[in-house]
């Protein structure tokens, strides 16, 4: 189960929360749980990458503005 390329951070995060609440419920099988954990790890990696990109973009953009003004 691969993470979709069209996925955005908010959707990924919402899915993560859904997985967490699913996992916390008692209605999932061992196999389902294993799949959800794997999915959650992919989502977390996606979100972390996204966060890092956003941070880099913000820094680059703000530093660029600084250079223009000074």
């Amino acid at each position, binding site marked *: 189960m691969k993470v979709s390329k069209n996925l955005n951070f908010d959707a990924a995060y919402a899915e993560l929360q859904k997985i967490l609440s699913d*996992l916390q419920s*008692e*209605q999932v099988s061992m196999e389902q749980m294993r799949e959800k954990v794997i999915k959650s790890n992919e989502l977390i990696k996606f979100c972390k990458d996204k*966060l890092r990109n956003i941070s880099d973009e*913000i820094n680059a953009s703000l530093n660029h503005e*600084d250079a223009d*003004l000074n």
Partner: protein
Amino acid sequence: MFNNPSISLYNLNEYIRRVVALNFQDSIWISCEIASFRESRGHAYLEVIEKPSPDADIIAQASAVIWRTQLNSIYKKLGGEQESALQPGREILVKVKVDFNERYGLKLIIEDMDLSFTIGKLALQRAETIRDLTAKGILLKNKMLPIPNVIQRIAIISSPTAAGLQDFVRQLEDNPYGYAFKSNLFPSAMQGASAAPEVCAQMEEIASRGDFDVIVIIRGGGGKVDLADFDHPNIAIQISKSKIPVLTGIGHDIDESVADLAACRSLKTPTAVSEFIIQRNMEFEAAVLFTYQKIVSSVSQLLQFHVNSMDVIQQNLRWVLENRIRNTAQALNQLSSQIKYISKVGLEKWSTKLSSIQELIAQIAPDSQLKRGFSWTEINGRRVSAQNIPRVKDELTSFTNEFVITSVLTKIAKNESK
């Protein structure tokens, strides 16, 4: 009728001639006034009279003659002033031989003439004229008229043959400043009995034309008796009536004529008049140039002032703009670092959330539970729970870290420790 003793007219006249000849053997000096004067074939024929005062009736009259020889020597003595000295109205002192001719009657033969008497009489007459004209305010009238600052249209009263006229016109035309003049000559006799009436007539003609800046009355130098022609009160009166300023250059160094006294400005010679006119125009031009210079310098000062204030305004504008830009840049930088900070904090928050989710999931993940020794029991593919309670003899599937155990339920009870 014929008894009365008588003599013939000839006898009578011959007798009178002898009486006269006997009593007037020598020539005598007499004073009289010329009533008329005419020349014929080199001889001069005069009527001389005497009046107790200028306006009184004639009390004595005689015919006089100056024979050619005497006339020539008198002319020589008068030195060119004969026309003025021997005109009607002049009082003269002459040496006469009293002659009586049987046919032509009494005749005074003039042999000599004393010019100084005429001049003296003229001086008295002149003083009388000046007194009279002064009392009537006539001498001041033309002086009250303003002379235009620029004189260009000039009415000249002069004799076309006068040397002074040529000098005057040439000097005007050759003026070093290149001023243009429009002069009209109004010809008039400048000496003799006709001078006064002709000058007056031309002044009236000029007045009727009207478009002149000044009237100039000029003639070349003349004698003292000549000058007397311009003492005639009529000229002064005509000048006083003029609405145009009159400049005279009648050409006498010592004395001023009555016309000079009545004129707005009297100058010695025609060239002095032209110099005066040129000088006046030059002064006006200089004043105009001076004013122009003043305007130019005021304007350039004003311009400089505005240029300077423009510079100041520009400087201020630049300063304000630079200030504004600097302040805005500062604010933006501040904003930028705030955004940077806030986004960093935000990102960290997200990061933390992700980490805690990851941790939670890791804890929940079955592998980690099993590793820690817990087992996981399912019935029919679902975890055993309060919602999924197995019954005795049901087949259970249990997961441990190492094994998957299938068993049959023999007994089930509630976990009392919970």
